[in-house]
């Protein structure tokens, strides 16, 4: 088997995933995307409540699902997503 077929490329880069999370959060929370940073806490910095997080994961599932069939964010994992970085890391790990 040719070597290049072993190289599995992530369908999305870290920058793309961050941009996706940031833009969806911007829509949901109605704040400027440029004010959202990777280190921001959903609750403490962005004032995002549980419903906003559900809106976010639904939006991410829909968009990432179009590029990676079967992609989903498990309900039991939601409480581990405390920051924007957590969400980006989670999506990237699931895409690996």
């Amino acid at each position, binding site marked *: 088997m040719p070597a290049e077929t072993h190289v599995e490329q992530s369908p999305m880069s870290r920058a793309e995933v961050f941009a996706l999370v940031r833009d969806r959060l911007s829509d949901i929370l*109605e704040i400027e995307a440029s004010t959202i940073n990777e280190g921001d806490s959903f609750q403490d910095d962005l004032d995002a409540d549980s*419903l906003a997080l*559900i*809106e976010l*994961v*639904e939006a991410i599932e829909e968009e990432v699902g179009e590029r990676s069939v079967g992609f989903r964010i498990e*309900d039991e994992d939601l409480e581990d997503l405390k920051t924007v970085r957590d969400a980006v890391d989670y999506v990237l790990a699931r895409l690996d």
Partner: protein
Amino acid sequence: MADLTEFGPRLAELVGRAGHLPIVVDAMGGDHAPGEIVGGARRAFEQLGIPIILVGRPDAVGDRGEVPLIEASEAIAMDADPTTSVRRMKDSSLVRGAEAVRDGKASALVSAGNTGAAMTASLLRMGRIRGIARPAIASPIASPGGTPTVLLDAGANAECNPEWLIQFGQMGTLYSRLRFGVARPRVGLMSIGEESVKGNKLVKDVHKLMSEPGWLDHVDGRFVGNVEGRDLMSTDVDVVVTDGFVGNVALKTLEGALEGMVKALEGIAGGDPVILDAARRLHDALDPEQQGGALLLGVRGVTIISHGSSSAWAMTNAIGLAQEMVRSGFVEQLTEVARLTAADTTDATEG
């Protein structure tokens, strides 16, 4: 307007006549689904000429006459967890119904199913109106001698912050005006006394905000202070604002009290046909089913949440209400109110 040819010529004809997109009806939701739901939808379609699309399992729906169907393989149970169900049952009748509105195939969704799931599906699929923090359920309460009182939130948000209640007041005022034709609706804040010092922290904080001028200007309403539970059926107030926990308790208390009152009246009637007739008429006059259902305010579409025990007759009423709200332009007007309110906030911040 969306291409509806897949649903047959009869629907297209009714859409043309009604001047609005079809109303999608969740055939699988409710204690008496799908039989009573389909019966009510057929009556609205065949006798009233309202354009309708049912959504549900083809093998379960039964004889639907000429009413078209969007196929959905799953049904969310009445007692299922709303968020998990909506997230995981993508091919459920509620999710498919909300998507039909989102995708421009329908103008409204009517369901007698799981209230929380109907709200979640509408929120996640149709989306919130920009500027609206939380959707709320508005439930009309019969008010003998006057127009019904709009109670909100009747159960969508058990815990609220003060700003959400301000928006509930604005949304309820617009609803009271458009649905019941009330000029300058009187808005009251539910508390345990009329005095502003009474109530819990939320009520006191909201009272302070509601006492500020201007917050009802874009919907043309007026704040009349605190009201109590006993005012719900009075003619002294048109819109009663509260959080979803208190609102739902108040609504269910009223329903239970009505049933108890009617039973008591029947008990003392001793077979007297006059009293029995009065009991029946009392029930009919105050029965929540008479009101057609509750409207979910704040999402980008009309969602009517009908009583779980809805009969075919109640479903026809709910469908009629959905049509009324589509024609009133409620969603479009609320979108404009939210835009104007956001602009006010921006001006105040920059000024």
